[in-house]
């Protein structure tokens, strides 16, 4: 394993360039905002309260999402049933929805007038209240449990079939398999999954506020928003954004240190057969888990579909144009994500650099408001920022999707290198040849997943485009907001359904492309 790091290769330089671009976007914009500040800023008691609340809710939300995702992912990994691949695609859905759509979907199920409370009413029970700290956590679990399940499932699917075959021939019980095979894999995958979800919850703003029930649920991102828009205190906005990145950095260091490197032998890519899981009890347990998770995730989506269907055919043409613009942005953003993620992953792998991986993960903690403002300050002297609305949106979305792509790619890449690296070195396979003949074929699955996720994420993002867009250049999420702001909630519901369907289709196409031969 102890290969020398060798001199700087071309791949290292490309990776370093990609990292530099990411750093410029995250920290450069922060510096730009700080330099425009009129006075030095400090943090008051309210800011500390926001930091505390943010940390607590993000930690709890991430822990719960990951803890619940493990049994669900295990159940999905060892069962084959009709509709499994559709379910796995749907798992991507909540995470890519614009916040307001997802919140309204959640409320239609868990709200005071939602189907859950209505059902309780029939039984003569009090309706439940989703508002409060638990509401924030429920919503974050709704958003992130599917993502956690997918990331962890990725770990299970990467385990070679031979190991389970060997385990079965040795007569391993499920507990033995868990101890010898699954736990080491989880030890490798879980910290990264936890980190990504922690970072996602860190920058939550509208979800936390809406379901938190009041100003007690003030997150750092809301404090940034307040500093910018209420007080026009750029110094404070930048300082809070720095705190946010700092918290994210600390979390990244801890998570990457806890995570174990993988290193136990290659397989031959046979279809996995799980002799151990054939007991009736485990069958029932897995079916129940999959059923419950599916219900929890799919009910709110079904409510969005139900509300959207009636107006689907009456949507104005502008919604169609907005959808096309969003598609273009999503595809560009997905391509950019790969162009950034592969060199960074290669650099992190080649130089054994946790730092490179860490920096690539931080972007999700960057405040969209500060990035947008910073870019505005930087671009304004040279060009009219609204001319660049769509390219800037694609770039920022790509950088935001980077952590997910790295999360999916890094474990798979280190596996590939551990299994075939020495062979490739022996053959003198470097640079493009290694990328084409070793990495791309072996990384199809995580690459498809990462591309699909990046495209779908970009599709649903409202973040930066709202600050730059010209009136007739709105993306689909922006158009959806405009419809709602004009009281046209019914048309907005139709637009939300279009958005949901397009995001899922994008995700499905790429994800499916990555699994074509592997899942047959």
């Amino acid at each position, binding site marked *: 394993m102890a290969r020398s790091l060798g001199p700087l290769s071309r791949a290292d330089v490309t990776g370093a360039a990609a990292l530099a671009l990411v750093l410029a976007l995250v920290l450069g914009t922060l510096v730009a905002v700080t330099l425009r500040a009129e006075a030095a800023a400090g943090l008051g008691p309210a800011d500390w309260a926001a930091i505390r609340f943010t940390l607590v809710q993000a930690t709890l939300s991430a822990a719960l999402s990951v803890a619940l995702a493990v049994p669900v992912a295990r159940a999905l990994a060892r069962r084959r049933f009709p509709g499994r691949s559709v379910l796995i695609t749907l798992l991507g859905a909540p995470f890519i929805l614009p916040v307001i759509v997802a919140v309204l979907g959640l409320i239609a199920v868990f709200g005071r007038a939602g189907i859950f409370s209505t059902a309780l009413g029939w039984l003569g029970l009090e309706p439940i209240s989703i*508002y409060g700290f638990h509401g924030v956590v429920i919503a974050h679990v709704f958003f992130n449990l599917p993502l956690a399940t997918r990331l962890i499932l990725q770990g299970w699917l990467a385990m070679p079939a031979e190991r389970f075959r060997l385990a079965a021939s040795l007569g391993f019980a499920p507990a033995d398999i868990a101890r010898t095979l699954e736990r080491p894999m989880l030890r490798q995958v879980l910290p990264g999954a936890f980190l990504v979800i922690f970072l996602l919850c860190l920058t939550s703003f*509208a979800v936390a506020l*809406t379901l938190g029930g009041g100003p007690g649920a003030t997150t750092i991102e809301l404090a940034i928003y307040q500093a910018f*828009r209420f007080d026009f205190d750029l110094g404070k906005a930048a300082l809070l954004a720095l705190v946010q990145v700092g918290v994210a950095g600390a979390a990244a260091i801890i998570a990457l240190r806890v995570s174990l490197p993988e290193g136990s032998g290659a397989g031959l890519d046979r279809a996995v057969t799980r002799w151990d899981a054939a007991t009736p009890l485990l069958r029932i347990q897995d079916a129940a888990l999959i059923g419950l998770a599916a219900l929890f995730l799919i009910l709110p989506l079904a409510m969005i579909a139900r509300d959207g269907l009636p107006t689907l055919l009456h949507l104005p043409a502008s919604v169609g144009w907005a959808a096309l613009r969003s598609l273009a942005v999503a595809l560009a953003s997905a391509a950019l994500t790969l162009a950034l993620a592969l060199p960074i992953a290669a650099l992190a792998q080649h130089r054994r650099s946790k730092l490179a991986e860490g920096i690539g993960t931080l972007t999700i903690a960057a405040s969209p408001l500060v990035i947008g403002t910073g870019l505005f300050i930087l671009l304004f002297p040279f060009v009219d920022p609204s001319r660049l609305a769509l390219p800037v949106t694609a770039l920022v979305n790509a950088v935001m999707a980077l952590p997910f792509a790295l999360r999916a790619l890094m474990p798979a890449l280190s596996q590939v290198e551990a299994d075939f690296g020495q062979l490739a070195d022996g053959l003198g396979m470097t640079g493009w040849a290694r990328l084409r003949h070793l990495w791309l074929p072996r990384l199809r699955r995580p690459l498809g997943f990462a591309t699909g996720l990046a495209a779908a994420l970009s599709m649903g993002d409202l973040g930066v485009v709202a*600050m730059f867009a010209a009136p007739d250049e709105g993306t689909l999420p922006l158009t959806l907001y405009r419809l709602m702001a004009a009281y046209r909630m019914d048309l907005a519901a139709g637009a939300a359904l279009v958005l949901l369907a397009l995001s899922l289709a994008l995700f499905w196409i790429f994800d499916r492309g990555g699994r074509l031969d592997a899942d047959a």
Partner: protein
Amino acid sequence: MKALTIAAGLSTLASVAMAETPVLTIYTYDSFVAEWGPGPAVEAAFEETCDCDLQFVSVGDGAEILARLRLEGARSPADIALGLDTNLTAAASETGLFAPAQIDTPALDLPIAWNDDTFIPFDWGWFAFVYDKENVPEPPSSFEDLIASDHSLLIQDPRSSTPGLGLLLWMKSVYGDEAADAWARLNPQIVTVTKGWTEAYGMFLEGEADMVLSYTTSPAYHLIAEDDDSKSAAAFDEGNYLQIEVAAKLASSDQPDLADDFLEFMLSDAFQALIPETNWMYPAVTPEGGLPEGFETLAKPDTSLLYLGDEAREMRDEALAEWLAASAR
């Protein structure tokens, strides 16, 4: 692909043709320029008379328009900012970025007297709690009524939303030093506090609460556009807080005369008649044809409350601190 090339060609031609016409750039909030807002019709009507190219730039909401102008400073391409409100005018005039309008202001149909020649009102409305008549057969007629009732409420965060800030100042103007106490008594009824109007109103229509903080004119949308008379708004005996939306000319404008022409046009019938059914607010000058049918059914508070200028800003910070202390659980 071919269609795109043709479109690109056409727009090149168009921009060549327009190279000589002066451009008037107006920063405004997003929903103003949306397909369903007043923007498109305003642009067409003004361009018919001005021999110019009116370009709207949409910037989030009123507070973000001001933030954007402060970032850009004197080099801003904007000629006019349209969509600030009375809570922002003090901070706006302090920046020195705005210049008085050189126009003859007609008599304004506002509930209060207006004497500011820099910030010119174009529409206004009263904040109010909107409800469904079936769920709330006996609406409250004052804050004390509301607190005594058990109606559930959806409000917006004053730090991120204009109506939210309106309610904060409304409570402050009614209760003065007792505002913190009033918030503490009202809080148990508040289901949640949302980021913006959109979230709260959407949740209200989903049935999440009995009443939502919005405008007295909101029921007019449901009545006129949806033929649904089930929504109404509560007028309070203490009075309802006003929002007056204003526009102003930038001192750095390279088209000051054209900007004045627009501000004059803004108070004419052509612009004002568009407001009620696109922005769902009251026009600042009632057009000759009167208000659209249906507006006469709306609740009309007897008293209008409003802090102006510096007072609005001082009250804002004090009231926010009180609300945060009373509401942070």
